[in-house]
């Protein structure tokens, strides 16, 4: 791997390569997490996962994560914020009511654990 110390102008290509390598590392770490979560879940159901299925779920989940990042960024920007908050994430799950209420109760549990919240005003 070439280390570019003259990375001033025209470093776009280097930046892209760097981003690619970073992305690959993250994808691998992510895949490992999915493998452990998926296998644990399969075990609970008394099943085993075939390797291609785990790989597929991992790829899907990674793509979903990327999509989630885009969605929450859009929601935050739409609200005139630079920082994504919990509501943005919960909103991204709007397609399934069950999922929304699941996340909402999860977020309320979080709020209960931490008495100090970022925002003082509550938006209804």
């Amino acid at each position, binding site marked *: 791997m070439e280390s570019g110390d003259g990375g001033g102008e025209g470093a776009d290509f280097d930046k892209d390569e760097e981003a690619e390598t970073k992305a690959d590392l*993250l994808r691998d770490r992510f895949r490992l997490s999915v493998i452990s*979560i998926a296998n644990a879940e399969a075990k609970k159901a008394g099943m085993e*996962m075939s390797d*291609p299925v785990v790989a*597929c779920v991992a790829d899907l*989940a990674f793509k979903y994560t990327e999509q989630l990042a885009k969605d929450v960024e859009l929601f935050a920007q739409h609200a005139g914020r630079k920082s*994504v908050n919990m509501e943005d994430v919960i909103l991204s799950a709007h397609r399934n009511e069950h999922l929304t209420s699941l*996340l909402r109760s999860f977020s309320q549990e*979080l709020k209960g654990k931490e008495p100090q919240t970022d925002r003082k005003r509550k938006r209804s």
Partner: protein
Amino acid sequence: MDDTFDHDLIHAIFKLVWSRRAHKSEANKPMDVEFGAGTSKKNRSTTANASALKVSCELLRVFVTEAVQRAAIIAEAEGIDNIEPTHLERILPQLLLDF
């Protein structure tokens, strides 16, 4: 105990996506007036607070567990104890509609 995703990992992936988008929009137009209030300032990249990351990790964990659980139901119905690609295929459309 339940496994879940590491917050830093998810945060890193988010940041990667956001910086990719910021980079793209910088290349096209530095000032996109019609886009609205959010981008009228210099394009500093988006951030996420800690609770947003926690809920994101939970959302992703649910995505994975839902995929596995739904596929397991199909496999079980067929009397097989190994989750195979065809099982995943069957549940994929509804999974993607739900998330």
